């Protein structure tokens, strides 16, 4: 069951690479939140119930409901245009993300006698690199934040791999999630929206040598 969920998660990355509208990105993030809820539930069923409840609440309430709603609110409030404005055509993005998945898959063959199941490694690493790819090839500041949230999801999957033995690390992942979402989104997108009228990375080119 975990394998099926994780493979669906990977497929959502491919969909992410060809998404044109910001709303699609937000929907994919919400969908990934639901998948993470499922994976966390199956993987961590044996840990302390209070901790499990915390993890599950974070995935379902925070990742799936609050963050997407909030992103939607920010886009409406700052009147950000719907298009994601990639620097590269979608076709190339699709190829690059496919290559990322294949390369991490090949890399995982080097792992010898480990107690960690390989699929977590493959899915999380390809998610992290896809997130970095999205950050570096999209023009808007808000898509940078979206790419960062994708990286967060990848890190969360990785932390689940040791979650049953070290629940502390999953909690840290949640802390990172809340830090990033609240801080990056809450304070800065609002501030940037107020001060810079058009929210675009081209506006952030003043500081240089």
């Amino acid at each position: 069951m975990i394998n099926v969920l994780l493979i669906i998660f990977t497929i959502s990355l491919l969909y992410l690479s060809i998404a044109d509208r910001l709303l699609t990105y937000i929907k994919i993030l919400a969908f990934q939140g639901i998948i993470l809820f499922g994976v966390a539930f199956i993987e961590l069923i044996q840990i302390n119930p209070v901790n499990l409840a915390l993890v599950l609440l974070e995935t379902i309430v925070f990742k799936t409901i609050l963050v997407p709603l909030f992103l939607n609110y920010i886009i409406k409030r700052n009147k950000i245009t719907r298009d994601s404005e990639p620097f590269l055509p979608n076709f190339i993005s699709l190829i690059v993300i496919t290559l990322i998945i294949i390369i991490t898959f090949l890399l995982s063959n080097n792992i010898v006698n480990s107690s960690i199941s390989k699929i977590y490694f493959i899915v999380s690493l390809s998610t992290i690199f896809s997130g970095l790819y999205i950050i570096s090839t999209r023009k808007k500041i808000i898509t940078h934040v979206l790419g960062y949230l994708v990286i967060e999801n990848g890190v969360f999957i990785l932390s689940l791999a040791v979650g049953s033995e070290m629940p502390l690390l999953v909690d840290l992942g949640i802390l990172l999630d809340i830090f990033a979402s609240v801080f990056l989104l809450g304070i800065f997108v609002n501030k940037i929206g107020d001060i810079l009228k058009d929210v675009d990375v081209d506006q952030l080119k003043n500081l240089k040598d």
Partner: protein
Amino acid sequence: MIGIYLPGAFVISGLLFFNRNRIFNSILIVAFLILQWVFTVYEYLHVNIAELNYFKPDSLAILLLVTLSIISTPAIYHSHIYLTSKKDTPRNTAIYYAAMVMLLTVISAAYLSNHIAVTWIFIEMTTLSASALIYHRRNNRTLEGTWKYVFVCAISITFVFIGILFLSFSLHQRGGDSLTFDSLLANAATINLFWSRLAFIFIFTGLTAKLGLVPMYTAGIDAKDKAPSPAGALLSSVLMNMGFVCFFRIYIVFANTALHSWTNNVILIAALLSIFVATVYMVKVKNIKRMLAYSSIEHMGLIMLGVAAGGIGYYAAILHLILHSFIKSSIFFQIGQVYRIYKSKSIYDVGNYFKYNTTGAVVMLLCFIWVTAMPPSGLFISELMIFRALFQAHYIIVMIVVMFLLTMIIWAFGKNIFKLLFAAPVGFDDSNVERINPIESLSQFIFLGLIVYLGINPPVEFVTLIQETIKNLPK
């Protein structure tokens, strides 16, 4: 004691944030400084006694904690001068002091923490408090600097977290306490090499944002440029030290595994590239504060060279780290005065500094001699030891390249500083130049004297602490 210090400092920071009364504000600041010093002295007297499970004041923590307390006292004094000269609103002043107290507290806690996850939490909190300091002037450019700093630090902190996860994969026995630095060191011989290699790469890359090395140095440059100069002094000294503490503890673990020479190569590449990047930008840059920020990158590169070379290099690296924090913070304090006279940081707008502020100009000249490691500066001793270590470790080509780059850095640094001190400024109206009280340069003179003292005639206690720090490293 840390159980008193952390809540106490957080309460002070919170009160500062909500308080708008000037006198109560000063009382709170003084209370924090007293708390900081009492804490430092207490930890100095209780070396290697673990507190609250996750905090242990080992010798490296003590050295850097004392450095932090010494730097923080004038930093708060210069902040006071900065804020009153700018006539800031009570609200901005409150946020500034609250963020600064918070920053100093979390950095102190990060020095002491003995668990990698706890260190990670405090590193995350430094990003929060530093960003409030960078955004102090509330305009487009500070917003840009803050946004870049927060975003790059968020990515880097994620990288460190991924590294911690890989590190936990590499352990055979996993449990709540298996990620303390002590337990990692005890189990160093048995860790899985594949995962630990990945772990080191990710942790090191993530920490470079705080350390100021290639590849993630960029955010720190904008931050140090845009933050008010007393805050910039903290960012380029104690905050970089915090990155170093976390790096060095991990490095000690890896030095005791089969990966020692591999990690040295990784560090060596990062160090060389950092010095190279710093040279290229220092020759080109026209903003004095940014030039100083690049100079920090160069010094961090030298420190990493010392670590990579090993042997006497370890000792030199720690010595250089501490001396560099003093010299860099005193230059940043001084730059605040330069800015108040010329209202600009650009090299084109400044000049004839001796005429407008003689004491400050003397400090600037001495700082130039000290930071480029000319005798009698203590940095001369540490750099000499680093080069000796490189020579002994047979990195002769690296040494020649670095010496060549350092020569170019001295030239670039000197060109800009001498322009500031002696050349006539173009189009500068000196009818109502602000008079700077010489007493404001006192802390810089004390720091410069301290550097000479620690470099040339280090007290026995100081040497013992450094040797205690590096005792777990292979010879």
